[in-house]
């Protein structure tokens, strides 16, 4: 018995091996963890079932093909090669997904891999797309995409396996926005229609917002000077002098702390060779630059970037590996830090902050990816067990997988666990914890997900949806409907009823969601609706098709009563909270205190330099 998959068959047992081979798996992300995952999946036989042969009856009722699909938007960079082993030097600048497929296909000739060089947010990746998979792996580096995949998987009812690493650990890290990168840079070099589009958050006072808008408008004007010799000086005086003066004028802000000191360009520098100096300095990214050096680099990078705009680049986006943009962000951030009396950082350090760079090594990725595949086996097994139970009920004589089923394991998703990798203590490198049930308060995991079938015409109105909800889903009058744009309906808001749903971004080929919230005294759980790709067919009697749910009936349980004391300090995502539980009691408490302290500090600096992103973020190896 020396077959290629002897080891797998021996360890997993026949039926599970078959299930694994016949599976269809989606892998989102082909970075550090993605590479390891793809290799592990291929070598473990996932999706390696050969296309149906003639002598065996198809065991899978659907016509879909077993296989792996990899989606990644990124291209290969030199700094990926220390761990993303599917890539070689000759692959630099090529799409990661395609190269990963090419390399990994060689590991097992019978595996079928599809690769998409695309964004997971693309319209083609709708709920029905996700439904086609047995399991989805997230190996992403940003929170927005993770949240999106999580929601899509919930809507499609497909198991999702999440993972992340930083340095020697698998852990959680918050993203901070850096002023120079998130505000100043796009204002100067971003797409022009975006400028001036300031986000207004609750609690900002109107004057303040108006002033900020004014500030942005002024910057826009300065953009017009681009390419002229006075451009650098104009930008400099605007953001480091005029804007600071305006901030200083808000005396109530500076009662308990040192007001910022504006910088005037002309009082600091008259040297005509400033750009040359900046160019030389920009190669020294380890030592923090002095004030004058920062000005030199600022002028130099601004000059270089302006020349690039003049030469035809419409939009320049910040990219940590685009040295010109990094020079600009590093020097501008430092100048602003100087004004606010914050410690200056070297460019190497700024790169880490602005570029969301996380120390990353091969070992942690290998560990994390392997743990993911273990969880996938468990999920596959639970699906198998369910199938067997059905088969048995139907009088079929299947042997249950005794060797792999122990009563202890029968938790959620076949006993799949959350597993943590830590480096602080060598006693417990890997620890695990049972999955938590959905949280009643969580807006992502508590609702019921359902799909709507929209008539071909595309003219379905909000009124029709309201009628359907009342007729089929048991809603009375007291409920509200929220689309991506905000609340579009509640008992007091009926202006929109005649409008087609497509006006709120909800159509047959969009990936948007509509949330229905029950506001009655005994509320049902939230209902989250997505649209099916299939169009409602015309009725037999020739009547136009009506809007309907994809399933005949829809059962909405009542919301559980709210727990008196929330279990966690809130704010974050359920997953993040759960992850922090890995710390042992006292240590966790201490860290929580520290965190609270530093959070306090950060808030105090809010309007200075650092703006905290909402809810923190899981940050991963890219």
């Amino acid at each position, binding site marked *: 018995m020396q077959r290629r998959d002897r080891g797998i068959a021996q*360890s997993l047992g026949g039926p599970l091996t078959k299930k694994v081979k016949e599976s269809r798996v989606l892998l989102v992300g082909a970075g550090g963890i993605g590479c390891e995952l793809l290799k592990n999946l291929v070598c473990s036989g996932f999706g390696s079932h050969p296309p149906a042969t003639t002598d065996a009856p198809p065991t899978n009722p659907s016509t879909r093909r077993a296989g792996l699909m990899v989606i990644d938007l990124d291209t290969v960079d*030199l700094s990926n090669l*220390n761990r993303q082993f599917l890539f*070689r030097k000759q692959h630099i600048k090529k799409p990661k997904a395609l190269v990963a497929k090419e390399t990994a296909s060689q590991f097992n000739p019978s595996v079928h891999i599809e690769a998409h060089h695309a964004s997971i947010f693309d319209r083609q990746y709708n709920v029905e797309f996700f439904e086609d998979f047995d399991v989805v792996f997230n190996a992403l580096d940003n929170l927005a995409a993770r949240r999106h995949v999580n929601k899509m998987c919930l809507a499609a009812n497909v198991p999702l396996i999440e993972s992340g690493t930083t340095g*020697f650990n698998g852990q959680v890290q918050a993203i901070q926005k850096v002023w120079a990168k998130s505000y100043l840079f796009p204002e100067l070099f971003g797409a022009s229609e975006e400028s001036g589009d300031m986000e207004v958050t609750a609690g900002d006072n109107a004057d303040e917002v108006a002033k900020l808008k004014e500030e942005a408008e002024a910057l826009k004007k300065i953009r017009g000077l681009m390419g002229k010799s006075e451009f650098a000086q104009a930008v400099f005086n605007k953001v480091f002098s005029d804007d600071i003066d305006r901030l200083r004028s808000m005396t109530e802000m500076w009662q308990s702390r040192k007001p910022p000191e504006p910088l005037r360009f002309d009082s600091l520098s008259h040297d005509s060779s400033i750009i040359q100096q900046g160019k030389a300095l920009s190669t020294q990214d380890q030592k923090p630059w002095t004030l004058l050096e920062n000005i030199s680099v600022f002028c130099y990078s601004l000059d270089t970037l302006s020349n690039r705009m003049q030469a035809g680049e419409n939009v320049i986006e910040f990219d940590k590996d685009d040295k010109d943009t990094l020079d600009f962000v590093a020097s501008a951030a430092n100048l602003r830090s100087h004004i606010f009396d914050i410690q200056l950082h070297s460019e190497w350090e700024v790169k880490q902050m602005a570029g969301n760079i996380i120390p990353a090594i091969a070992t942690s990725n*290998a560990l994390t990816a392997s743990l993911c595949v*273990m969880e996938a086996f468990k999920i596959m097994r639970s699906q198998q067990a369910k199938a067997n139970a059905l088969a048995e009920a139907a009088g079929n004589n299947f042997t249950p997988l005794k060797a792999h089923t122990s009563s202890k394991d029968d938790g959620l998703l076949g006993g799949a666990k959350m597993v943590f990798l830590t480096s602080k203590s060598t006693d417990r490198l890997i620890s695990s914890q049972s999955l938590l049930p959905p949280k009643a308060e969580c807006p992502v995991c508590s609702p019921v997900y359902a799909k709507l079938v929209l008539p071909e015409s595309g003219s379905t109105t909000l009124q029709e949806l309201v009628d359907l909800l009342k007729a089929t889903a048991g809603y009375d009058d007291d409920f509200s409907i929220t689309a991506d744009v905000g609340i579009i309906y509640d008992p007091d808001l009926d202006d929109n009823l005649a409008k087609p749903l497509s006006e709120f971004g909800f159509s047959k080929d969009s990936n948007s969601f509509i949330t229905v919230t029950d506001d009655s005294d005994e509320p049902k759980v939230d209902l989250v609706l997505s649209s099916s790709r299939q169009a409602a067919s015309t009725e037999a009697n020739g009547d136009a098709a009506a809007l309907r749910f994809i399933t005949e009936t829809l059962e909405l349980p009542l919301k559980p009563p709210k727990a008196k004391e929330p279990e966690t300090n809130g704010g974050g995502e359920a997953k993040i909270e759960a992850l922090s539980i890995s710390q042992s009691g006292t240590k966790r408490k201490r860290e929580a205190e520290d965190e609270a302290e530093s959070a306090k500090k950060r808030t105090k600096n809010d309007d200075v330099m650092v703006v905290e992103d909402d809810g923190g973020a899981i940050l991963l190896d890219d």
Partner: protein
Amino acid sequence: METTTIEPPLQALPTAKEKRYDRQLRLWGAPGQRALEETHLLLINSSPGVAAVETLKNLVLPGVGQFSILDPAVVEEADLGVNFFLEDESLGKFRAEETVKYLMELNPDVQGHAIKEPLETFITKDKVFTPYTLILVAAPIDPTILATIRKHAEALHIPLFYLHCVGYHSHFSIQLPPAFPIVDTHPDPTATTDLRVLKPWPALQEFAREQTHAMDKMSGHDKAHIPYICLLLHYLEQWRNDHNGTVPDSYKQKQEFRDSYVRKGSPDEENFDEACAAVLKSLISPTAPSALRDIFNAPEAMELTATSPPFWFIANAISQFYTKHGGLPLPGAVPDMKAQSADYIRLQNIYKTKAREDCAEVVATVRELEKSTGRGSKLAIIEKEVENFCKGAAHIHLVRGRPLQIVLPDLPVTFGDRAKAMVFELTNPESLIGEYIAFLAWDEFVATHTTSSSVKGGKGLRVPGNNDAEFEADKEKMVGIAHKIVDGILNEAGERIEDPEYTEIKDGIEKICVELVRAGGGELHNIASLTGGLIAQEVIKVITKQYVPVDNTCLFDGVASRSYVLRV
């Protein structure tokens, strides 16, 4: 930010190499990378050994200097399924050569060598292990050969790793030299802050007095910018006056100090907030942790010779410093705090100056020791090394390596002074010692069923369960051996475990044995990959002498997704 404690990799424009390694340099810095590049690893593999190959993959990617694979086998069909490097056309070729070829593709900076010689003859050669900095052995292996390798590794002080990966279970043990010190343990940055507020030196006390002088008459702005360290020192002086010169000692006293002294200064200024928050953390006497005192009292530190490693010279010097001053050399770092920039810089300088003075004193002692032991000038200890030791003194770690446990045919497995600890592990439901015992049984099975292939009629290594027909017989043998080992531990420790616990322990071990036999020596790719990740991580710690490595045995149970570290 954590990275500030790591030496930046370079001062000029990054080269392609530095760009490639950028993400890892943020973890172990240029010295770590240098150590990695000076390493030559030897892997001894007698089976598909995927876990070991995965380990190499994880070390080739970050740029280990050289590696050699000793493996006389040729590639078979089963290798293709688990070893992702091998392709159909590798069939029939030497496994070592094929694997080396593909591993080298991952990183052009790395040199790989294939050794196709049989182990039996290889190990008999003179000085055959001297070129290597670290040896990795994958089970199964003939135990007598492993014993020879162990002997060489011990004599040459080469770290030796021994690993198993069977089905859902894996294990590795590390044999380190008897004294393996780690200076750069990368402690939590908050744990390294040492402000010495309870034992201020004159310059610091003077500065604090100056800052807090006539505090009541200060402007609101000035008062709000007194560095919190000065506030603590100021109120500590008051406390001493009120308490016969003693300092707040108990938790209760510290609370009282915080609420009735510091907080009274200002109800809501940020610097007073900082001072209050720091009371419990900072009011600690600078005593050396017990692990460090063990190092001070180690025979190597007490009895220096001209050729003792630098670590022990420095340890001795710091021990003298500690005895003389009742505290360790000052690390010198000052945390961020609310203050006027100029004052903050002065404060930083006060700490830095003191740290430099302390370090200079230790260096002077080291020089005296060098002289008194007659150490040659070529071996003179580098000042930078003393400085690093002084900075991280409180977190220095010493691993006492122990010889690898090898199961030899017809010899009982013994644990010596660890036998009692093993009994404790047996009764600890969290422990995975059962898995370790099952692997020992697996090794004993191999030892007693292997006939050297160099002998006529010899069949080579045989692992339990590799032949379906003998599954039941193998299972029984394995369980029998494992139970014998359990009883052996109890006998050696002179202890008993009563039923029903005794039976439960044996049943638990039996289950693992059955799993190991069922797998028939087969590796699951993802378990092998995970094990390769774990081992590579520990190899990097051992090579870079940064972070604290596993001491000395690690077990992974893939069924429960759990790992456990055991000191054998």
